């Protein structure tokens, strides 16, 4: 049942896809090619002298302790964001699926955070948790927690994870809700007649049927934590205190634009590029296979 338009003209199809091609080339391929080129070059801070250094930038990276530390930070950050984001949104979606009255309001409110720009989200959370004036840190202090993400690395990490999770929950929620709604009601009813209580029904029927969605979201959330959280971190902690929240993508920015090590920064970009390619391949390989129930 494939619908296909056959163009008589030779050039019309090319004209029609030209805007898309232009955008992809100008904003994706060209910068990527630039990064690849720069990663094998060394240039001074002003860009006046450029020297070919081969793989030296990459070798330097592996000998750089702060880079490896950043890997570790990123791992902690992205796993926390993915796990917390997925489990919270799954919980919310299960609740939303049961709500009968006011379901629309509930769902709309849950989707709102997605419309907030990442930097704004970072600032929002920054205010709430500001050690001196923040409303949450005030409450925490009342409970005996001396909150200060400017000094305490764990606090800072918690803050950016919360902000990043909050921002991503809407997206996960939508997918889980759609997934839940595509499970036929009669399956749940059959399980109820078979004697399964709600908790057991969830873990033996609903959760396995959601596993393609969950896996898809896992990959998407890791990619999100790796790349799209830059603005949150920049607004909330700027990678600090020290380098405790400087994830890989933040380090790319810092080393390139603050420390002016363009070659090293480009090499880090290339490493990130490889990671995202691997994640995408994994995604297509496994998700496509598992979806067809």
């Amino acid at each position, binding site marked *: 049942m494939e619908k296909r338009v056959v163009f008589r003209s030779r050039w019309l199809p090319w004209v029609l896809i030209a805007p898309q091609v232009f955008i992809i080339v100008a904003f994706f391929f060209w910068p990527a090619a630039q990064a690849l080129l720069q990663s094998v070059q060394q240039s001074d801070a002003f860009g006046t002298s450029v020297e070919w250094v081969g793989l030296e930038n990459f070798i330097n990276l592996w000998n750089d302790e702060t880079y490896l530390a950043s890997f570790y930070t990123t791992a902690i950050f992205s796993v926390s964001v993915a796990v917390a984001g997925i489990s919270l949104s799954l919980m919310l979606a299960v609740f939303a699926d049961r709500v009968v009255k006011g379901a629309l309001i509930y769902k709309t409110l849950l989707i709102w955070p997605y419309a907030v720009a990442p930097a704004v989200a970072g600032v929002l959370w920054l205010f709430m948790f500001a050690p001196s004036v923040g409303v949450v840190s005030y409450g925490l202090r009342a409970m005996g927690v001396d909150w200060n993400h400017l000094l305490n690395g764990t606090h800072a990490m918690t803050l950016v994870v919360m902000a990043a999770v909050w921002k991503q929950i809407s997206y996960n929620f939508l997918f889980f809700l759609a997934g839940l709604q595509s499970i036929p009601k009669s399956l749940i009813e059959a399980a109820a007649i078979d*004697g399964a209580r709600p908790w057991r029904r969830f873990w033996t029927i609903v959760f396995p*049927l959601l596993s393609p969605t969950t896996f898809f979201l896992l990959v998407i959330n890791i990619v999100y934590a790796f790349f799209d959280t830059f603005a949150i971190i920049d607004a909330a902690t700027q990678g600090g205190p020290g380098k405790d929240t400087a994830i890989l993508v933040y380090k790319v920015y810092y080393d390139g634009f603050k420390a002016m090590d363009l070659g090293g920064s480009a090499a880090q970009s290339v490493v990130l590029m490889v990671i995202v390619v691997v994640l995408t391949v994994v995604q297509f390989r496994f998700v496509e296979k598992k979806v067809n129930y």
Partner: protein
Amino acid sequence: MASITLKNVVKRYGFGKSTNQVIHGVNAQIGDGEFVVVVGPSGCGKSTLLRMVAGLEEISEGEISIGQRVVNNLEPSERDIAMVFQNYALYPHMSVFENMAYGLKIAKVPLDEIRARVDKAARILELGPYLRRKPRELSGGQRQRVAMGRAIVRQPQVFLFDEPLSNLDAKLRAHTRLEIQKLHRELGITSLFVTHDQVEAMTLAQRMIVMNDGVMEQFGTPEEVYTRPATTFVAGFIGSPPMNLLKNAPDAKPGTIVGIRPEHLDITAKGWSLNVDALEMLGAERLVYGRWLHGAGDELVIVRCAEDHPAPELGSTIHVTPRAGRLHAFDAATGKRLPI
């Protein structure tokens, strides 16, 4: 095994002004081991009734008992029933074996016994070679049998069937109908079977409930329902083509409707005169559509005659006579059957 008793069962949706009552006080006593079919057009409340027995819908008013127990407030799992769904509702991520064993595992039946029971059910339903397969690797008919198997292994007191044959093609449906009959003979479990298909209802039922608009119109054996329909609705719903329900038959009393099945009208030399309006050849029989010639209001009268009977010509006049004892009379206002 158990009987099922429905006492004044009512179902309402919504509250206050927006209340929508879909079942209006159904009373029925289904005997132990009986096979009862609930039949009616779509939207008549037959599935809702079944789901109330299953415990998937709340009972707004009245009482349902299975055996000696009132089940109104029992969970589906506590009612000792098994249900076969229209879309089969097989767990797609589990193998056929796991599908059938799921309920037993939850009931903490020992593994040896689970295996024995599933194997037995698989043997009865000829599912042996497919136990390791996933539902998506099975044909429609096989899936239907797995759904039956899942019901059988639980050894419930009552089987509930919610249009289990409507997703099968005609040939398979006829075959599965026979299988269900055989299964019921062997296991003798009380069964409630919902369908919109009158052929299914007539062939499977020991007794049938005919429903319309949330009201039970008749509860009786297929023979009773066919030969003595309680209302004009039943008369028109059971039988194909349906019974002629005539307001203007020559000898009708005012305020009554005369009913006569097309197969109980014979073309004779004298009798009711009809103008032949249309003809349909169905193979073994022929349908003749006629209109009154005695000057009363216009009505279509269907006559069913054997294929070897000479066909009347279109536009010609024929005479028909109802067979003795086959006339029915109904009250025109209430639609209820009147004594002849």
